[in-house]
């Protein structure tokens, strides 16, 4: 039964929809749900399990609009980019048939003459723009394929180029689509940068339907959603729990240090701590995670080889993007999303939550920074300090909460342009490996998988991570150090507690113990020693 419904839904979803409509019309139960709710429930029921869900053809860079038949059912793992479109009012019934889900638009015969328009049948649908998830790592998108970036770049979708301004990362192929949702969203509206899996009918429609048809046809991929769910990456499914997290952590730190940081284990540990930092409430005077690796040696071929850190982190974390700063980028592109002519252009910082952002100052050269560039630096700085990003609308800017983990690489001994909360001078043993001069040789997926699993566990809300005894220990420790004349300030203490918390998380414990505390303290002391050394 289930499999039959599944194949029906995949082969002729339109038919299924019309059938549902007829049935819904006939049932005159007083408590019958609104039709869009029924559709959502029905389709979500069919594709309940991850296995069934994965049978729906995906809409992504490799399979853009052109590769799908019109009105086929697709699944789109996407980031909501723009929610500022006005809702559309449509005729929900035309000639006894459902008028939603693009049924009327795609079928000329179904279009009614205007006297048929019954105003009682008007209904509303939410419209938003969604793009493929920026910075989503290849191994997440194609878990069963070996990483092969070049394949995607060979087929840049023409459509994606036209709407490139809706995608945060410049010069990166992506898929963008107008998403139309028929269920009532007033209770739980989408916000920009939400990650959602939309399932629906894929069509190619006019960008603005209220316009009169234009010859050159500003068409755009349009997804008429039957149901949607929160995006959850499929790679986490069915993996056995790790036997010894602590040992794996050691291994992981060593691997990151070797592959990306010239063998600097402390730097690797700091980087990983920043990357896994759990969510912490914004109101606290807590050091929000941002790390500046100073004294990063310049690449022999300064502009062409990206630092390997980005690629290494992308191999470990599902969402990771790089932002190589240059005067051109700073002066030309906007970091904040900005609404121009009522179209919300994306900004380089419009990234999903928990994104790891590797900002590189290594590519920057001497020159003039214009007003836009300064504004961009200011936005980046604001994100680091308050984790909020302004969206610029005419006459007003709206702050949106964001959650980016930022690692800044800079050649300077101190932070030059972007100021981070934690500064660590890099001490590479083997500086050759800092840059990605050739393809990064990744270990086998079987080796990476446990690491990935280790890093992306369910995030604990983290109340009570310090026990009563432990907090006493921290307190005594602080007083003792100060009495002994060791320089520890209030900020140092706050930072150490925060970091201890990350470390506890990394170790897979639920509470900080003395061992973790001492380890964090030692780590931070080594960092401070390096700072003094550097002066």
């Amino acid at each position, binding site marked *: 039964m289930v499999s039959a419904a599944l194949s029906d839904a995949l082969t002729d979803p339109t038919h299924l929809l019309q059938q549902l409509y007829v049935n819904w019309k006939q049932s005159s139960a007083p408590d019958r749900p609104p039709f869009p709710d029924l559709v959502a429930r029905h389709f979500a029921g069919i594709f309940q399990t991850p296995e069934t869900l994965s049978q729906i053809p995906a809409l992504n860079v490799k399979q853009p609009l052109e590769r799908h038949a019109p009105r086929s059912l697709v699944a789109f793992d996407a980031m909501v980019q723009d929610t500022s479109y006005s809702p559309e009012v449509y005729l929900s019934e035309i000639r006894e048939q459902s008028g939603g889900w693009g*049924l009327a638009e795609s079928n000329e015969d179904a279009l009614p003459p*205007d006297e048929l328009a019954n105003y009682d049948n008007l209904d509303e649908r939410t419209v938003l723009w969604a793009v493929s998830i920026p910075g989503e790592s290849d191994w997440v998108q194609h878990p069963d394929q070996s990483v092969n970036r070049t394949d995607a770049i060979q087929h840049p979708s023409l459509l994606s180029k036209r709407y490139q301004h809706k995608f945060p990362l410049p010069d990166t192929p992506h898929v963008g689509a107008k998403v139309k949702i028929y269920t009532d969203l007033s209770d739980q509206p989408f*916000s920009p940068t939400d990650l959602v899996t939309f399932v629906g009918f894929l069509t190619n429609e006019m960008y603005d339907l209220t316009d009169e048809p234009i010859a050159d046809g500003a068409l755009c991929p349009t997804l008429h959603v039957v149901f949607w769910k929160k995006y959850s990456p499929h790679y986490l499914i069915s993996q056995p729990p790790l036997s010894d997290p602590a040992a794996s952590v050691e291994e992981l730190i060593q691997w990151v240090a070797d592959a990306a940081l010239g063998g600097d284990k402390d730097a690797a540990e700091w980087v990983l701590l920043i990357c896994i930092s759990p969510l912490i409430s914004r109101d606290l005077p807590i050091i929000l995670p941002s790390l500046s690796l100073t004294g990063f040696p310049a690449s022999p071929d300064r502009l062409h080889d990206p630092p390997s850190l980005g690629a290494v982190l992308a191999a470990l974390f599902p969402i990771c993007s790089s932002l190589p700063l240059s005067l051109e980028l700073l002066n030309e592109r906007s970091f904040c999303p900005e609404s121009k002519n009522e179209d919300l252009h994306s900004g380089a910082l419009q990234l999903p939550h928990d994104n790891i952002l590797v900002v590189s100052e290594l590519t920057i050269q001497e020159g003039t920074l214009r*007003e836009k560039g300064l504004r961009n630096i200011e936005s980046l700085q604001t994100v680091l300090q308050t984790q909020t990003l302004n969206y610029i609308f005419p006459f007003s800017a709206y702050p949106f909460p964001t959650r980016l983990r930022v690692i800044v690489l800079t050649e300077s001994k101190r932070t030059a342009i972007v100021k981070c909360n934690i500064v660590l001078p890099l001490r590479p043993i083997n500086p050759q490996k800092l840059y990605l001069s050739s393809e990064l040789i990744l270990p086998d997926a079987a080796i990476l998988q446990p690491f990935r699993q280790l890093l992306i566990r369910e995030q604990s809300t983290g109340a009570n991570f310090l026990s009563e005894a432990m907090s006493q220990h921290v307190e005594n420790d602080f007083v003792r150090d100060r009495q002994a004349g060791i320089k520890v*300030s209030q900020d140092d203490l706050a930072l150490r507690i925060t970091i201890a918390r990350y470390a506890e998380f990394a170790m897979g414990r639920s509470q900080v113990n003395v061992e973790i505390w001492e380890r964090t303290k030692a780590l931070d002391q080594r960092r401070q020693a390096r700072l003094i050394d550097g002066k």
Partner: protein
Amino acid sequence: MSSSPLHYPTTDPPQSDLLAPPSSRRLPRTPPGSNGPLFIPSSTPRTQRRHDIHSSNVMTSPTAVSARRTAPLPRTPTADADDAPQSSLPAAQPEPATFNAIWGTNVSIVETASIFGDFLRNFKPKWRAQYDDANDIPRTNFTSADPNVPSYPDDLRKMRLTGETGLNLDVVNLLSYPPAEKLWWQLQKYPQEVIPAMDQALKDVMITLAEDDNERPEIIEEVERAVYKIRPMGFPAGNMRDLNPSNTDHLITIKGLVIRATPIIPDMTQAFFKCLKCSHTHRAEIDRGRIAEPPACTRDRCAEPGGMVLIHNRSAFANRQVVRLQETPDVVPDGQTPHTVSLCVYDELVDIVKPGDRITATGIFRALPVRVNPRQRTIKSLFRTFVDVLHIQRGDGNRLGVDPSTRQPGERMPGVGGTAMDVDDEDDFPILEDEEAGTSRKADLERRLKDLSRRPDIYEYLAKSLAPGIWGLDDVKKGILLQLFGGTNKSISRGGGGGGPRYRGDINVLLVGDPGTSKSQILQYVHKIAPRGVYTSGKGSSAVGLTAYVTRDPDSKQLVLESGALVLSDGGVCCIDEFDKMSDATRSVLHEVMEQQTVSIAKAGIITTLNARTSILAAANPIGSKYLPNLSIAQNIDLPPTLISRFDLLYLVVDQIDETADRRLARHLVGLYLEDTPANAGQEVLDMETLAAYITYARSHLHPAITEEASNELVSAYVALRKVGEEPGSSERRITATTRQLESMIRLSEAHARMRFSELVELSDVQEATRLMREAIRTSATDPTTGRIDLDIVNVGAGAQQRRMRSDLKRELLNLLGANGAGGVRWAEVLKSLNTQSTLPVDASEFSEVVKSLEAEGLIKTVGDHQRRVIRLVPGAQ
């Protein structure tokens, strides 16, 4: 737009009376915007209509003239003025119900019209006052003074005199007038039908009124010809997010920000066709957005098929404009982007709003099918939604509303009406999400804030709530709290120049202290709650500059960012971290900002001065990254004393090692992280939003004045502070207070009064201000060598003690040089011999200062450099 003078003879018999005499058509055109004959072609008796209502059943009857003559409506006698209003509807109103009921309802058009006519004649302001009192809203002001006199006839007379055709109708007046109450919801549900009826009633009343006033016949004629329009307003404003298909064709009110307006679009209201064969003409009215083109000549004898052509310049057009309205930031839910809707404005309302205006628009929500192709009848399943605007109210000029200076003086909102205000005075509350419940929520918030202000410990409570995550620093927090409230800006009306000097009310605070003492975090917190705050780091990027340069530091060969000028927000708090690392250029801007409250910008040969009424909260680190307690503050921070002295409060935040304090600090921090919320044990604090609302409210509503008692206290406190500098038995005076400190004390006292929500500065305010001042001075202006307060340390960078030492040194140096004759003495030798004389070792830097100043005085000169420097007396200088 009136017809062009091109002559096309009309042969269309039914409308031949509309043909204007040629003379009238040659009238000079009046510029748009004036209410001249462009819209009311006084001698062109063409059927005028309003274009915002596309009503299907245009009221044709009752003709006012006949109704008026047969059954004059009785006026309410003055005797019953104290009674509740009674319906004075004439019983003998003929009502052909079949004709005039709105389809599908029992609402009778004729009845509606007559009720409204009665309302216009008899509504008195006192009923509105009663209504306002009963509903606990502030009373509405009416133009007419006597609340017992009907207010509308006055307005109508004004309309007649000015030729204005729009009447702003505050619908709350309908509600407060019992006989007209039901019009309130009829108007909302069936505006399409009810508004034409009201227009007709208005016209009838206008005519009666003109006749009763014994106007000249040509005026009456003009009134009879004019198209009068009701412009309803005053419905509670809804959120544009809540508009949905069920609102179609209803009257709605929305608030928003105009982001775009199209140029004027000529909208055809009447098409003029001419037969190519027989030159017969035909007019066709627009019907629901479409004009029916006659398929054949309408003259029976001709009936040439397809021979009718449209003559553009004989057709009638209306002005139309499409305005895009965006939600204002205060109603957008958290984490959402603002929505926009289209507004169509017609006729007089065209071009009265400009992008950037905050407006409240009342209109009819419409949904029109989108056609696949303009030539086909098939439609998409999609509908276009927009609002046909009937009334626009512009927002407050204080915030993002109208900037009055951008408007022509003569430009005003069209329409006449007693209660129509151009500006709607609404408070700027940071938390006001739902306009529907706006008024009550606002009142609720106001009440809550007032309750809060009555707490006896409000000062402590608020100070505690400021940056609750940061432990201790109570006085610093109090100082910053008062900074947020701010003193009042004063300008002295007497005095020279343009109205005398202006005194700033902004309080500037400087925090100096060891690194790692949470200074930056205090700044960031303040930035979060302060209105229009700017957070910037002195070193890194500036807030918003014009340009900046990425350059290589000549010393370290590393890239650095050199920031440009600092642009500060007017009326906000500017938080500057690493104040000491600021570039000289930026610093010089701050000099001006902090005293004159202006910023001068020179660009392209033009120098402009902008207002920058901002208070500054800055944090600076000591020179050697650690504060040295045996040096004075001026020696500890790398800032020119002139700039330091511009701060009202200067706090030292020193990281002292003290076991109990350390322990409490550690416990506080650990406790904070334990909870992951800022709720500290046993300490209740105010949340950030309420605190921000509290401050905003106080800043915008309270302007405390100084009482007699307080002013006496200020004087005596100032005198006392100055007296500290006097030492018995010594002629020398240390400076402990200057007029700057007095001004600071006044500002702080005012801020403290504001914080209490008090309109008067009282004794207690001054006492607290003095205490804060004294505390701040004690920490910052204490001479480290004598332990005494000496404000010159802050003001000129050297205390009295230091100055005395310098003058001793000068004298001895001159003596020494004089003893050695004209040959001069080597630098090192002078220093050595001075050291042997003095009981205290002579500081090398101090010595070079002295030498420099003597050189400047022209008494000595130095020759050579470095080791071989020789100091010589200048011959004959003494």
